[in-house]
């Protein structure tokens, strides 16, 4: 008998203005020890189905099914005691954002111990000892200390490990992982996925992996369920889904995973670069309280960086959260004031210009943000939003501005009739199109794109990238593309700048970075990219921060023709290829 058996599950939510059918009659089963992946975009009903399995849906949801069985219990009719057994002991769940998944006012140890004590009759001391053992099992080294920590004191990766430890605490028969790595950096994602596979084998659990990322699927599961619009599109062994997809939607998903674009044709060094950052740095003052007095120290978000954006090219700026890539982009736009350095736009330094002098430069440089929802004024119509830059810079009459905005709406692939709508009426992809139209309506030469696709579904992401690429070629734009998503960077950019802890550690043409990375951090980043086919999945070894430091590349004076230096700095090892390294005699 299968461990999980769902037959003809239907879930609908009652909302203002009627019913929304989130899940429309899906069936699947999971056997003991098996790994099932459920893949689909947001709104496909993948998370809702699994929440229904543990009766975690809000009161606004109506659930009906021929049968939902978990571990031999009829979930729909489960009483209080059965439910307590189902949750935690039969099935345990881990969630997308570990930062919000823990109660902020209790320590990690308390929260794990509390889970143990609610399922078994043990004392607090024993439960804490067991929690420590669990933390060790999920490869947290200083487990005893971590027990005392509060959630806000730990990083996302650590918290997700602790979350896994908590899920394991009652030896569940099935582990449900709901987008467990979506909120994490690439390198951390690879570690967490590997950890989940490891504990699954050690504890002999079944696994349900819910994700929008086919790479995660390829890395972790045996069997796949593809969902779209609340229905199952396709089901089968993972290799078969990747090699011989049957359904059109699955094919579209795979196509967007392997999307690639022509590299842009820039005018080589003949003219000055569109944008050049020279020694640009940002330090924040940190206030520390010592008794009655304050002491100050500097936090260097960005150490002096040099980045060149050639005309009509796309340069990728990659790194994990906290690497300083977004701050660099914001400084380049003069949206954050740099502590030091120059910003050269067409050869003019704009880093010290006042608001009036800056205004004419603002026309030439625009930005698109990650979160399109908060980037668009909810009280303005799309026409008003897109036409606003024209209004600010006094371009054309009101009628011309509106006409221009409507034309741009079409140009980014939206019908003119959308002009009177508001941002909340659009999907994420459509909103990002509006944001792009607003950024480009002034005809800028430089566009900073700060993670413009990372909040979007895979298929939509490919469309937005396609649109950006097309407009770049038409308008001769120079784009600084900030992203943590290396597969997008690989398919879109001409060259890549890798940032780590506020420094540039490597820079080279895209093809070269991906084929011949020199810095250990670049290698770690590339190694962490999930496989695009289950055949390519592999065991990975991860380097700690100190190991990365120790593995800084070394070159000799003879190799580089440079003076020796003992502290790492950026050196040129080939035309266009710079890497942070030590030069020895």
């Amino acid at each position, binding site marked *: 008998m299968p461990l999980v058996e769902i037959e003809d599950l239907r879930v609908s939510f009652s909302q203002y203005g009627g019913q929304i059918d989130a899940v429309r009659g899906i069936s699947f089963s999971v056997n003991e020890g098996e790994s099932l992946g459920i893949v689909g975009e947001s709104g496909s009903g993948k998370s809702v189905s699994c929440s229904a399995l543990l009766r975690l849906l809000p009161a606004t949801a109506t659930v009906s099914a021929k049968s939902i069985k978990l571990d031999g219990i009829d979930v729909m009719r489960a009483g209080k005691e059965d439910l307590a057994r189902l949750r935690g002991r039969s099935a345990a769940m881990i*969630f997308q954002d570990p930062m*919000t998944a823990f109660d902020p006012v209790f320590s990690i140890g308390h929260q794990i111990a509390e889970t143990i004590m609610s399922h078994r009759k043990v004392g607090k001391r024993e439960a804490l000892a067991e929690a420590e053992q669990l933390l060790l099992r999920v490869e947290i080294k200083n487990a005893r200390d971590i027990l005392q920590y509060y959630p*806000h004191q730990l990083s996302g990766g650590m918290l997700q490990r602790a979350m896994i430890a908590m899920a394991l605490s009652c030896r569940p028969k099935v582990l449900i992982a709901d987008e467990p790595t979506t909120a994490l950096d690439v390198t951390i994602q690879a570690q967490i996925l590997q950890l989940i596979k490891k504990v699954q084998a050690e504890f002999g659990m079944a696994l349900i992996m819910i994700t929008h990322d086919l790479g995660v699927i390829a890395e972790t599961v045996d069997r796949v369920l593809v969902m779209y619009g609340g229905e199952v599109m396709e089901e089968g062994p993972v290799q078969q889904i990747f090699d011989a997809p049957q359904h059109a939607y699955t094919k579209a998903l795979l196509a967007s995973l392997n999307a690639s674009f022509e590299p842009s044709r820039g005018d080589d060094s003949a003219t000055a670069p569109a944008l050049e950052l020279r020694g640009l740095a940002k330090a924040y003052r940190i206030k520390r309280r010592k008794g009655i007095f304050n002491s100050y120290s500097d936090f260097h978000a960005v150490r002096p960086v040099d980045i060149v954006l050639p005309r009509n090219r796309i340069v990728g700026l990659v790194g994990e959260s906290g690497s300083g890539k977004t701050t660099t982009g914001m400084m380049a736009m003069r949206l954050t004031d740099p502590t030091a350095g120059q910003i050269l736009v067409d050869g003019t330094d704009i880093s010290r210009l006042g608001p009036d002098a800056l205004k004419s430069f603002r026309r030439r440089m625009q930005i698109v943000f990650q979160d399109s929802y908060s980037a668009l004024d909810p009280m303005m119509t799309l026409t008003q939003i897109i036409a606003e830059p024209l209004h600010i810079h006094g371009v054309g009459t009101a009628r011309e501005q509106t006409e221009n905005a409507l034309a741009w709406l079409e140009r980014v692939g939206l019908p003119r009739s959308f002009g009177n709508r508001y941002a909340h009426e659009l999907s994420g992809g459509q909103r990002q199109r509006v944001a792009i139209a607003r950024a480009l309506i002034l005809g800028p030469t430089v566009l900073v794109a700060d993670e413009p696709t990372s909040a979007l579904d895979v298929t939509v992401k490919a469309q937005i990238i396609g649109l950006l690429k097309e407009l770049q070629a038409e308008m001769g734009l120079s784009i600084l593309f900030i992203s943590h998503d290396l597969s997008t960077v690989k398919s879109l950019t001409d060259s890549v700048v890798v940032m780590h802890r506020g420094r540039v550690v490597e820079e080279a043409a895209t093809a070269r970075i991906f084929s011949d990375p020199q810095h250990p951090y670049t290698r770690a980043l590339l190694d962490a990219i999930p496989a695009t086919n289950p055949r390519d999945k592999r065991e990975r070894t991860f380097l700690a921060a100190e190991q990365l430091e120790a593995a800084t590349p070394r070159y000799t004076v003879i190799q580089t023709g440079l003076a020796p230096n003992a502290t790492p700095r950026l050196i040129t090892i080939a035309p266009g290829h710079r890497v942070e390294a030590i030069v020895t005699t």
Partner: protein
Amino acid sequence: MIGYILRRLVSVAVTFIIVSLIIFFMMHAIPGGPFDANDMPVSQAVRDKMMANLGLDQPLWVQYTRYMWGVLHFDFGVPYQSPGETVTQLLSRAWVPSLVLGGLGVLIGAPLGILLGMAAALNRNTWIDYLASTVATLGLTIPVFVTSMLLILVFAVWLNWLPASGWGKPERWILPITAYALIPLATYARYTRSAMLDTLNKQFVTVLRAKGLSERRIVFQHVLRNSAIPLVTVFLPMFIGTATGSIFVEAMFRVPGLGAYFVSSIEGRDYPLEMALMLMITFMYCIAYLLSDIVYALINPRIRVGGEP
């Protein structure tokens, strides 16, 4: 933590001085004085003599320094309107009814309000929620002198169960305290409801359910503790702020409390009494905010433990 409290104490002292300055000079900026001709028909020489006796002929800053020096020694002067006693004696006499009224009102109203808010949040969009919200909205929107009159009309005039006004015997306390308790009840109910709903919608509550914790444990241990954090900053100042009672309730039920003196001291330019009353309120609010900040830091690990370990 101790450094934090010390720093806050210094800022309390500074606030207190600034507020006292503002009150003192505003008080004297009101035209007229305590012994104006139409109140006290005496000759100019007598009036000058009285002013000199009370030190009112001195420059304002001298008067201010003298008064504040007295305050440092717990000497708040003698009220002009009843020179037979000191301000301290007057306050300790009149404050008792106000304290009983305000204190009991909050002690009864606050827990009821919190319970009502909790019941509403846990039974969202049911009749309990609607009832609680209705009570809270009415309590906040209807002025207290209207509810007082309604209470008198129903319980004293129509039903004739309770005396309409006065103080002294406990049965005379019931109506004013009820009228007063409605204010904290309504406020606390509203705040508690929204704070609880906020917490209940957090992701970690779903995680707690998925762990298999009982609903009771989730609500009473996790949700309550998390909801209490934002509430502390609202509740404590309100709690202490009520210790002065209510001018309106006291007037409606003829309670011999502090309320009347707030009005009469300003009207009669009774500077020592007016100043003492204002300083008392300032002091209590300063302490209330200090306490609420300390409690906030104590129950919130994000402040108590700080960031990186």
